């Protein structure tokens, strides 16, 4: 009884995802790209680096990189706290 409800829910979910994949935009033609065209045109003049992806990660959107470094630091903090021996 419980297993058949799970099987029906999984079939509905996978059918919904494949139907959405058939109705997406044509692969290879993005609809809006004005922000990325500005980044490609002006990244070399403003920052002086050749790699546009690195300037986006560290200069135009540096705040997200700060959040990601904090997530990595918190994961190491949690693992060190789990494996600590209890003081006798």
């Amino acid at each position: 009884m419980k297993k058949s409800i799970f099987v029906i829910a999984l079939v509905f979910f996978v059918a919904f995802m494949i139907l959405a994949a058939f109705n997406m935009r044509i692969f290879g033609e993005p609809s809006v790209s004005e922000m990325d065209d500005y980044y490609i045109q002006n990244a070399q003049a403003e920052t002086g680096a050749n790699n546009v992806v690195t300037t986006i990660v560290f200069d135009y959107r540096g705040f997200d990189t700060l959040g990601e470094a904090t997530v990595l630091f918190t994961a190491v903090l949690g693992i060190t706290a789990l494996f600590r021996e209890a003081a006798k």
Partner: protein
Amino acid sequence: MKNEMSRIVRTVTTLIYGFIIIYGFYVIAHGHLTPGGGFQGGAIAASAFALLVVTYGDQGVKDFLKIDVLSLVESTGLVLFIAFAFFGLGVTFFYNFMANSGGLFGNSAIIGINPGDLNTGGTIPIMNIAVGLEVLAALGVIILTMSAGSKNTKKKENS
């Protein structure tokens, strides 16, 4: 211990782990010219630590990689990253105040397709080095702590 790795594995590891660390530092340092950067180079250099732990076991590496030194390196990397974000607070947070000026890392790039110049970029190469140090030390601490803690979690003996 009776079961240690064979002679071929130990010899090849001793010859190769230095080159893997140098390749990781190359990818970190040239992050603003070629594909790569801080996170990718730190993951490449941490795989050398994983190779050492697999070959020599947890007790054989204890004099070479200490957890306290690696934890200090990780904290230094994160503090350096946040400090260079606060220096540009005259205009805004995370402002690139060293780009296109005369001093360290201050050349201007030629517009268009060019072979890269290492002296350009502003604060981007310094942030690459800080994040690379942090990712290298964080992955090394994770590998060493989980490998040392797996000794206490072995199968319980029913005596």
